[in-house]
């Protein structure tokens, strides 16, 4: 049996994409708590108000967002000793090598492109969850 106690945080300025990612997550992890943010700054501000046991298990951020973009958000999280262990996935429409390199340099755990269909989105989210949330499997 699988129990996910920790929530998953998503930051994306596009409400459609927020709902697509949320829906794909719900399909994979029914009942798991999800928190949506429309920009990186709100997400980082929220993280700073949390106690350790409230930390999210996974963060998914868009790259191109007004204000604090995905790269800066990753950089903020990875520069905080208490937060840096949280896996951060950059999920973006950009396929440019420059963006990939800058995100990985900032400390992103993974860089993925947004797919063209909901089916592919579900597959992608499923793979991300399988890869980055194995530590909270309980038997």
């Amino acid at each position, binding site marked *: 049996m699988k129990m996910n106690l920790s929530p998953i945080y998503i930051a994306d300025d596009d409400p459609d994409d927020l709902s697509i990612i949320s829906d794909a997550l719900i399909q994979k992890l029914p009942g798991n708590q999800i928190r949506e943010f429309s920009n990186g700054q709100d997400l980082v501000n929220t993280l700073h108000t949390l106690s350790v046991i409230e930390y999210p298990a996974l963060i998914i951020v868009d790259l191109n967002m007004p204000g604090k973009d995905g790269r800066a958000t990753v950089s903020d999280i990875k520069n905080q000793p208490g937060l840096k262990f949280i896996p951060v996935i950059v999920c973006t429409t950009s396929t*440019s090598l420059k963006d990939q390199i800058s995100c990985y340099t900032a400390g992103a755990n993974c860089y993925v492109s947004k797919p063209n269909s909901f089916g592919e989105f579900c597959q992608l989210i499923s793979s991300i969850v399988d890869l980055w949330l194995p530590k909270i499997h309980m038997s």
Partner: protein
Amino acid sequence: MFLDNVHEEDQQKIRQKIQEAIDSQSEYDLEFRYKSDGGYKAIWLKGNVHKNDKKLLIKGTVMDITTRYQLLQQLKKSEQLYKQAEALSHIGNWSWELKNNTFLLSDEVYRIFEIPGSPVKFDRDDFINNLIPSERPRIEQIIREAISHRRPLEFTLKYKVSAGVIKTVKVLGEVAYDEYNHSIIIIGTCQDISVQQEIEHKLRMNKAELEQSNMSLREYAYVASHDLQEPLRKISTFADRLRTSHEAELSEQAKSHLSKIISSSIRMQQMIRDLLSVSIINSERSFENVNMDNLFQEVLQHFEDIIEHKKITITADRLPEATVIPSQIRQLFQNLISNSIKFSHPHIPCHIKLTTSLIEDPGDDIKNTIPGRNYLKIMISDNGIGFNNQFAEKIFTIFQRLHRKQVYDGTGIGLAICRRIAENHNGMIKAFGEEGKGAVFTIIIPS
């Protein structure tokens, strides 16, 4: 008798001058031409007239000045030539005597600096006063240093020729010293370079504008790659969600319509990406001297599996070295080979042939040929389905396709990219097709 041998044009002058001397009983001094050995001699006649016992006495000396006269004529001629040359080249000559601080200026200098009438006294102070004030210390410094360091003089200056008119003048000079090592004179040239400066300025402006427009283009490409694709991705994603989440309720026709929405939006995304790849090709221009054969072999390796699977025969001449953009030539080969494979005959085994030759003159195929450069001609031919030759030009247009996409996929960008690549190399590509028999693509680039 005497006057008969004087040049016709000088006779009147002699009569008049002598008469004047007689009337006033004074000196006379005249030069005239005198007939001798079929030509004329130049004669100088000088003397005086005075009355003695009511007798008129004319005394004088005669001197043959032919040689001096000829030299003088030559000097006048060469001076004239020199003035013409100066006027043509617009380079003025000047010398500046340091001791008495005077300038000796050629006509062109007066023209350049628009100094009214040459007899006007013009010295160092006049010159300095007309300099743009901010220029004065700099130029005085340059002149001082040239004198003290025995350095050739070279500078450009801004000079106010009249109200509101400022010229840019380039000045070169050399300081001469006397035997006591005192600087005595500076001799040099000057040239009005205002027009050149203006052209240079315009060129710089154009270059800046071009850079600006290139930057806008890159920005445009970025917008196309991100923002234009966004709505399309949404269309396909939500149509897909609609199809899967309402699978039970939807009719077969509705599902088919949704599929068409999805495939069209995905296709448009592909087209935007293709369009971008063309703009990227235009921005990358790093030429290298490479072995073209290696590039071709790399491309064949890329198609290794399909070549083996489809039993494709490839015969190719050995390609020489050339100065090209390697990634682009690789892509050119890749697009052409991929085309030949894609449009191979369904019943005849595919045979692709590459031949190459060096040519001296590409003839009308290339508009602006580079003189003295040899050209490399590469022909890639196949025995595929070919095409009606009336479309030989059309197929190089972006998104032009000769077949329905249901039969042969692709957006129709491959050959458009090939043409851009050939043009980037100052070369060309053309096609020849015969329906049912095959196609030949000819590339000509400077070798």
